[in-house]
Each structure stands twice: as structure tokens, then as C-alpha cells.
């Protein structure tokens, strides 16, 4: 896919800020050129007039060029400032646009297609990739467009003074753009791709090492592991060194080409001077202008590398966003749910898409509306996986689930969310205040209602004592809360949604028995009519439930039938 169209630079909202940024960048470069060009002329002109005697001295009008010099100086200051502001704004807009687009595409893929099998942080990659593509505008588009446009203008201005010097300048800039910068781009591209893979591998290996720290120690393999990682890191650094060397080498080459072009422009100008086609003052002017002109070519090698980086990022984004959801969206709009909202599971078999380990194996059970059912079983056996199936995050391979008498596959996660509330263990808490967190579940709830719910989950005392009450920040992923508090906040969210069905995953983990008892009491009296499926390994919760199911060996059966 074309990077320019992919980045969204040409969408209506972004076109004008982007063009304005480019225009400012060009004006700033032209002002710089004008400043040095005119200063050169001013000095040489004054020197000529000074040498030519009193009449010439008086005839020389210093006012006009001096004003010009001041004008260009001011213009350079103002446009460079505005350029930075406008281009950064456009780049941020671009990134924002991309992020919304990416997010919209990724939403139906969560969580099945967004789990990274390699320990790397897949989600952080979306952040850096959208950044990269957004910076493509400031780091590649602007430098190249500016070099081409301003290079032409510089050559034209020089050409008006002396035709051949214009040609020489144009040729010099062209060499910087085409063979030098594009050469860097071509040489860098495979290495940049290699670097991306090497980085990913290294990160995955590091993550694996951290996860297996203990086993490496007991295997006596720690030292070998450190050496292996170091070797991998050295390979990575070799690639980085090569890329940096290439870029700075090309930059030096451009400076050198600039000098050679300037020297040849000086030669041409001196020739023309001897032929009487040029005044003496114009020689230093052309020379200085030529030196200043190459400023626009300096960022090009880096721009070429930025281009490949943005391309790799765009390809990854595109690939991730065009994946098909693990659970396809229902073809037809979801039908209305029929009461009673009974859940029937028949002969259900399930394993995760990337593994062969069976989680459920011909499991069957029924939960009638209004029942309170505990699901027990050892940890790691798939109790939480059952939630993923019931909320349509993963497809099941065999068997059938019906909800209210209709096939569960007719509904999407979002449809089911209207009827089923989940308080899962892996629930994400968003950075914000306690009020924000609860409003996520019910945006219309007033403070009195929120406090009521918090009382039910035994959290109101904590909130009342917190310095900012409901406006207390809970931190990134709820880091400011203890594990038990975070879990109860999630429970409060589920209760606020007031759905007929509640699925609770270890609701009282991390609580002492007294709080646990109060919480369960409060919960049941707050929602006496709700159907509750409570997943737990704590026997203390069982008395609050009507009956108990046990998950073992991929089967789900009533507790009393377990041998």
C-alpha cells in the first residue's frame, strides 16, 4: 500500500495544515538563502564601491540591501518558528487520525488476534508504529519537498544572475537528492528491515529469559544465557552502527558536494567576470548563495531512512488491521433475546486457536434464569476460558451454546454485553478517576447511586477516606489500588450495568472472611433477581450459591457427581 495514501496525508482535514507546513518550511529555507545571498552582495558591493573612489562611495545605496538583510533575518526567525509549530501540529493530527483508524480496525480483533505469542509488547508497537507513520510527514515529506522546490528556486535565482551557475547549482542539488540520498535509502532498506526483525527477536528472547530466570539458574545456564543475549545484542548494534555510519557519511558527502559546486560556481563566475558579463560583487554573492543552498539537502539521507522506517511501520499496521476476527461478526443483526434467559451448553469442546491443549472436552451444563451457580475447579483448567466463550471472544470447535433458546453465534460480544455483565480477573482499569471508571459502566449514574454501589462492594469506606473521594486517580492500570480494591471496583462496574446476567470471576480474591461475607450478602440483596455464575476456587462462596458445578478434565458436572 502506498505510504502517502496510507498515512492519510491527503484526507480533507489534513491537507491544508500539511500544505501550510510545507509552505512555511520553504519560505524559511528561502529566507536563509536570501539572507546569505544578499549579505554577500552587500559586503562585496560595498568593498567594490569603497575601492572605486569617493563618487562610487556616494552613489552606493546601502540602505536598500541593509533593509533587505534585516527583512530576511526577521523572516527567517518568524518562519522557522511557525514552521516547527505548524508541521508538528500536522504530524500530531496525522498520528491522531491514524490512531483512531487503527483502533477502529483493531476493536473487533480483541482479544483473540491481539495476543502476542512472542512475549513482545504488541500493543506498544501500535503506539510506536502510528507515531512513525505520523512523523513520516515531518521527517520525509517536508525535507524532500523542500529540497526539490527550494533547490529549483535557488538554481533559478542563481541562473538569473549567471546562467551556468544556475545549472551547476541545480546539478549539485540533484546529485545530492538522487544518487546520494536515494543510494542511502536503497542501502539502508534491507538493513532497516533486518533491524526490525533483530529487535523483535532480541526483545522476545529477553522476555523469555526473564520468564525463565529460575529455570536457567537451576540448569546452571545463566552465564551461557547472558553470553548468548550479549552476542545477539552485538549483532543488533552492528546493524545500528552501519545505518548511522551510512547516514552521517552521506551527510558529509553532501557538504563536500556543496563545496565542489561552490568552487565550480566561483570559477564560472570569475570567467564571466573577466568576460565582463558579471560585476565583481556578484562573485561572493553567488558563492555564498551556493553554500547556503546545500542546507536543504543535509536532512535528505536521514529522511530516506525515516521513509523506510515509516514504510515498515505502515506495513505492520496494515497487516494487523486487516486480520480477520477470530469470531466473525454475525451476518445478520442480532435478534431480540427471548426470556427466560436460560444458558444451555451441550457437548462443548474448545481449545485455543494456537494450541492443541483441550480446555473443554464435550462439556454440557445448563443454567436457568434466576439461578445462582458456582463453578469450581483447580486453577489453570479453563474456568476463565469459559467466560471468553460466553462473551464470544473465541469460537468453540464442537457442540452448541444457546442463550434464551437461540444459538449464541447469532450474537456479537457487544450484543451480549447488553444482557451479560462480566467482572473478570483480567479486567483492565483505565487511567482516570474512580468516578470515570464507574461512569464507563453507566454514564448516567449520579454520585448517590455510585456511593450506593460502592457500599455494596465494600469499597465506600475507602473512597470516603481518600483525599479526593470519587475524583481520586486510580493510576495506570489501577496501580494506585490494591489487588482487592481493583477487583471490587470491577465488581462495582458490573453491578452498575444492571444486566439480568452476572458472571463473576473470583469476586472475593484477596479479601478477609468478614469482608467477603459482607460483600456477598450485599451483592445478593442488591441484585436478588439476577442470574449469577460465580467462578471461584474458594469454598467459602459456595453457601451463597444455589448449586455448584465442577470443572475437571475438560468436563463440567454437578459437584456431587465428581468422584
Amino acid at each position, binding site marked *: 500500500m502506498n505510504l502517502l495514501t496510507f498515512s492519510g496525508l491527503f484526507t480533507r482535514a489534513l491537507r491544508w495544515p500539511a500544505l501550510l507546513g510545507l509552505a512555511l518550511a520553504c519560505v524559511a529555507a528561502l529566507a536563509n538563502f536570501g539572507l546569505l545571498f*544578499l549579505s554577500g552582495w552587500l559586503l562585496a558591493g560595498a*568593498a567594490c564601491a569603497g575601492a572605486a573612489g569617493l563618487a562610487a*562611495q556616494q552613489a*552606493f545605496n546601502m540602505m536598500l540591501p541593509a533593509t533587505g538583510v534585516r527583512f530576511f533575518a526577521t523572516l527567517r*526567525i518568524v518562519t522557522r518558528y511557525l514552521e516547527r509549530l505548524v508541521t508538528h*501540529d500536522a504530524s500530531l493530527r496525522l498520528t491522531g487520525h491514524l490512531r483512531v483508524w487503527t483502533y477502529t480496525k483493531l476493536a473487533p480483533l480483541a482479544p483473540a488476534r491481539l495476543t502476542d505469542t512472542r512475549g513482545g509488547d504488541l500493543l506498544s508497537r501500535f503506539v510506536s508504529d502510528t507515531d512513525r507513520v505520523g512523523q513520516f510527514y515531518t521527517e520525509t515529506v517536508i525535507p524532500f519537498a523542500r529540497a526539490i522546490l527550494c533547490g529549483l528556486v535557488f538554481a533559478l535565482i542563481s541562473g538569473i544572475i549567471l546562467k551556468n551557475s544556475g545549472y551547476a547549482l541545480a546539478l549539485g542539488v540533484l546529485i545530492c537528492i538522487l544518487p546520494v540520498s536515494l543510494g542511502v535509502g536503497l542501502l539502508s532498506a534491507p538493513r532497516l528491515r533486518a533491524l526490525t526483525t533483530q529487535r523483535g527477536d532480541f526483545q522476545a528472547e529477553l522476555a*523469555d529469559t526473564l520468564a525463565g530466570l529460575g529455570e536457567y539458574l537451576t540448569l546452571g545456564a545463566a552465564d551461557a544465557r547472558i553470553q548468548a543475549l550479549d552476542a545477539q545484542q552485538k549483532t543488533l548494534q552492528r546493524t545500528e552502527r552501519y545505518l548511522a555510519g551510512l547516514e552521517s557519511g552521506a551527510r558529509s558527502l553532501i557538504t563536500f558536494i556543496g563545496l565542489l559546486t*561552490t568552487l565550480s560556481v566561483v570559477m564560472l563566475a570569475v570567467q564571466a567576470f573577466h568576460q565582463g558579463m558579471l560585476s565583481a560583487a556578484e562573485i561572493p554573492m553567488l558563492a555564498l548563495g551556493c553554500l547556503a543552498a546545500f542546507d536543504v539537502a543535509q536532512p535528505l539521507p536521514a529522511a530516506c531512512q525515516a521513509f523506510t522506517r515509516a514504510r515498515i511501520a505502515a506495513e505492520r499496521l496494515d497487516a494487523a488491521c486487516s486480520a480477520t476476527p477470530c469470531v466473525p461478526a454475525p451476518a445478520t443483526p442480532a435478534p431480540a433475546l427471548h426470556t427466560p434467559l436460560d444458558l444451555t451448553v451441550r457437548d462443548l469442546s474448545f481449545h485455543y486457536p494456537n494450541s492443541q491443549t483441550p480446555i473443554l472436552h464435550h462439556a454440557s451444563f445448563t443454567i436457568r434464569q434466576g439461578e445462582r451457580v458456582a463453578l469450581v475447579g483447580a486453577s489453570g483448567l479453563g474456568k476463565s476460558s469459559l467466560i471468553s466463550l460466553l462473551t464470544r471472544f473465541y469460537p468453540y470447535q464442537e457442540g452448541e451454546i444457546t442463550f434464551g433458546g437461540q444459538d449464541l453465534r447469532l450474537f456479537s460480544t457487544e450484543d451480549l454485553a447488553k444482557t451479560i455483565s462480566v467482572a473478570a480477573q483480567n479486567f483492565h482499569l483505565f487511567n482516570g478517576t474512580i468516578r470515570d471508571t464507574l461512569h464507563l459502566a453507566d454514564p448516567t449514574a449520579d454520585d448517590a447511586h455510585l456511593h450506593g454501589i460502592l457500599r455494596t462492594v465494600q469499597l465506600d469506606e475507602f473512597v470516603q477516606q481518600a483525599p479526593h473521594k470519587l475524583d481520586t486517580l486510580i493510576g495506570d492500570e489501577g496501580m494506585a489500588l490494591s489487588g482487592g480494591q481493583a477487583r471490587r471496583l470491577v465488581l462495582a462496574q458490573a453491578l452498575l450495568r444492571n444486566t439480568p446476567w452476572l458472571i463473576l470471576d473470583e469476586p472475593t480474591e484477596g479479601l478477609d472472611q468478614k469482608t467477603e461475607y459482607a460483600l456477598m450478602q450485599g451483592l445478593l440483596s442488591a441484585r436478588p433477581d439476577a442470574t449469577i455464575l460465580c467462578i471461584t476456587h474458594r469454598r467459602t462462596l459456595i453457601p451463597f450459591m444455589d448449586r455448584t458445578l465442577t470443572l475437571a478434565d475438560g468436563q463440567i458436572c454437578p459437584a456431587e457427581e465428581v468422584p
Partner: protein
Amino acid sequence: MQSQHSKNDWQTAGMARRAKGWLAGSVTLGGMAAVLFVLHLTLLAGLIDDLTFHSVAIAAEQHLLILIAASLGGSLLLQWLADRAGMQAGLRIAALVRQDALRHLFRVGPVGCATLPAGRILTTLTEGIDALEPYFAQYIPRAAMMVILPALILAVVFHLDGWSFVILACTGPLIPVFMALVGYSAQGIMDRQWMQLVVLGSSFLDSLRGLSTLRQLGQTQASITRMAAATDAHRASTLSVMKVAFLTSAVLEFFSSLSIALVAVVFGARLLSGTVDFRSAFLVLLLAPEYFMPLRAFSASYHARQNATAAAARLADLFALPDMQTTDRIAIQAETPLSPIEKLVCSGLTAGYADNIPALQDLSCTLSRGLLTVVTGESGAGKTTFLRLILGFLQPSSGSITAYENTGLPLADWQNRIAWVPQRPIMTLGTIADILRLAKPDATQAELRAAAQQADALEFIETLPQGFETSVGERGACLSGGQIKRLALARALLRNPDILCLDEPTSDLDPASAQRVAQAIRRCAAHRIVLVATHHAALIALADQTLHISQGHGEIFSANQRACA
């Protein structure tokens, strides 16, 4: 070793010491490049003056042309080398710090590392340490260059023209002052909006992390709208900070443009009256932009310093994790034939994690050679804590574990003779043989076969297309759960450990594979102490004794007692 480094060594200054040579080289080369650069400008000004005002023929200037090109070429080459040296310094420091950090993490052990979130350790090791590189590669050399090149130019200008010297000498030091003033107020605005910037800036990642939650809350559509609003708000507030922050570079721009204009105008007037020569005027005009260039380059790399300081703070957190307090287990021990461990006596073990109630209280038991002991109990009861104590990953707050050899004498360093098979064994990318040789790099084929035989893994390995040379794929993707467990067991046996610990060896396995793994474990107990944490009834039935842990308290039953109970 590195653990004796003072805390200060993880500050950036301490790290710089580790690549002193490269940094000094970079600055020296950069200084030499600056001298050649000024020389080339001087020669260029002379050339243009000669050709324009002294009617020197081009042919007579040929040697000068070559000299100009050569001095610039030399300057660029030296600068390129200086950049490389700086980069080398940065990469070297990053590599050394990363290696030290890993070594330290191994010394801290799995339990100690768990006190920091796993994601944070990983990002500190990757992005965090990467952020050090530009600081040493760019910031430090540029900071030095900011002094060298302007000083050199000032010295040259001093000899050329008093007025220009005054202009440059006055504007030069003013710039940092004004930049600091503006930077200070930008920082003020930033601090005021800090929370908002952080929350908005991370909203994309936060929303992505919470996508499943949002879907289950039925908030998918609403969250898209919210995300769009948040990115726009983030842009707006970032821009309001940038408006001021960019003024710092505008200050620089102001002074550099102003002094070029001033030099041009001041010289113009005096050239007209014939009081200065063109050559010096032109040279000053060439030098003036270069006078400000290092400052611009330096301020462009200023954020490198901020990133590096932040990374250094996170590294300091990581290095502050305490060691496991056991003997150094990173170095591979020399295999001297030792008399086997006869028994392990645990007495009054109490242990827990940071300021919580003890996970294990006053546990005493004896584990003897030749016996298979299973540790049972509900999850969270303290099974894992007990295994961690035995493995030495956790220190008991009171009580002790002592190992005795058959002569009845206590043994030192016995923890080096333990092997462990965790719930999710490490499966690196490579062949079966590679995976087994993790435990013993020089193991012979016969040793591999013997270990595989003991672990009941030989049969399946031999049915694989290339036997021991079959690649297992990423994380053992080509193997079944039971095969991975038996392979890990074989690997653990390769070191012929005196003590073998296994954590839930039969979880996630179908009944048939679980049975095979259980039988293999039973056979291993013949000459060693075997300790297994498990829920699995079939495995418990095979055990010689059971350690039942309930709410931190342990009780030991022999097989007979259990049968009676």
C-alpha cells in the same frame, strides 16, 4: 563484581566512565575536524578575495583549490570518525549496562524480580537502555563541541575584526541565558499540564490494553469517539506547550540571524569607507553561522539527556533489587564428584513476601533420598512458597534448611545440586538436542539418550523425523504439552541432580500423558530426593509421602498414613 558498584554508577556520569576512551576520542577528533573546518573557510575567503579583488588568475590558484577541498575533506572525515567514536561509546555503554542488568537480575532471582512488574523490567532493559545511547553518542560530544568550535571561531574573529568579535562574544553567552529563561517557563507550563499530558498521551495504549474490557462493557463505539476526542485534546495541549518550548530555538534563531545581519551591515559601512579589507569581512560572514551551529545541534539533542536521565532512574530501581543471598549461581560450577545428599531437613520454616502475613509458618519436615514427596494443598496455600525456599529463590524469615550427606555431615552449596521443572519450562528455538544441552553444553549423545530414556522421552524423540536434531519450533510449538514436560524432565536429569523439584508437572495434560509423566517421575525418585507440587490424584497415589499445606501450615503423611486416613 558489579554488585559492588555504588548506586552512583547507575547515574549517567558513572556510566560515562565506562567508555572514557571512546568519548575522549570523539571529542578530540571533533576538535581536529573543527580546526580543519575553520581552515577551509579561511582559505575559501582568501580564494574569493584573490579572484574578485586582486585579479589573480584561476590557474595560479589551483593549489589553493586543492587545499580547500582537502581541508574540508579532512574535516568531514575526522567528523565522521568522531561521530563513529561517539556512537561506539554509546553502544558500548548500552551493551555493558544491559549485560550488568541481566547479571544482576539473575542474582536477584525470580522471586525478587517479581516485585517489579514484568513489563517494566522488560522495557527498562530494551527502550530504557536504548535511550542511553543517544545521550553518550550525541549529547556529550555536542556539549563539548559547543565550547570548542565557538571558542575557535571567536579566536579567529578576534584577529580579524574588533567589532565583529564584540558582537559574537556578546550574543554567544546571551543565548544560553535566554534559552534557559524560555525553557524554564516552558517547563512550568509543562509541569502544570503534566498529568493531563500523561493521561491523554497514554490514552491510545490504555484503550488498546482495555479493548476486551470495553467490548464486554458494550462500550466499543463510544470508546472510539472518546479516543478521537482524547487524541485531539492531546494534540491541543501538546501544542500549547510547544508554543513556548519552540521559543527556545526561536531565541537561538533570533541571535544567529541578528548577528549575521549585524556583521553584514557593520562591515558594509566600513568597507564602503575603506577601513577594512574584504577578505576579513567575507570570512567573518562565513564564520558567523558556524558560530551558532553547535548550539543548535546541542539544543536538538537536549531531549536525549532527559530520556537518559529517566532511563537511569529506572535502572537504579532495577539495580536496587536485593540479591538472593545465596552463593553465586551464575557461574557454572566445576563438577567435582561429591557424595550425594542423603536428606534435607527443614525446621521451623517461616517465609513471606513484602509486609504481608507469612505465606508459610513454622514448617518442619525431612525429605530423604529415594523418596517421592508430593506437596498438596489448595492454590495459594503456600506450595509454591515452599518450593521457592527449597530452590533458594526465597529466603526464610526464620528457620533453616540443612542438607546432610550420608556420613551425617552437613553440606554447603547444596542448592547447586537441585534441578527444577517449572510449570512452563523454557523452550528455546532450536533442536531437541539444543534444548537438552541448555543444562549441560558438552553433553554427549549417549548422555542425552540416557536422560531422555529416564524421562520417558526417548521413544517420542526417536519417532520424530530427525530424532534429536528435530527443530521444536517457537516455544516448542511442534510438541504436545506432555512431550514438553518430559523433555524438560530429561533436561533436568541431564545434570544428574541430587534433588529434583517439579511444579504441577501434569497440569494441562490429558489423562494418558499425565500418567506417563507421573510414571517417569516415580522412576526418577530411585536415587534422589524428588519433590512435586501437584493436584493430580494419580501422582499423589504414587508418592512415598505427602506434605499437605493448608493456610501456611504444613503436615506430613507417609503413604500408609494416607491410605488409613
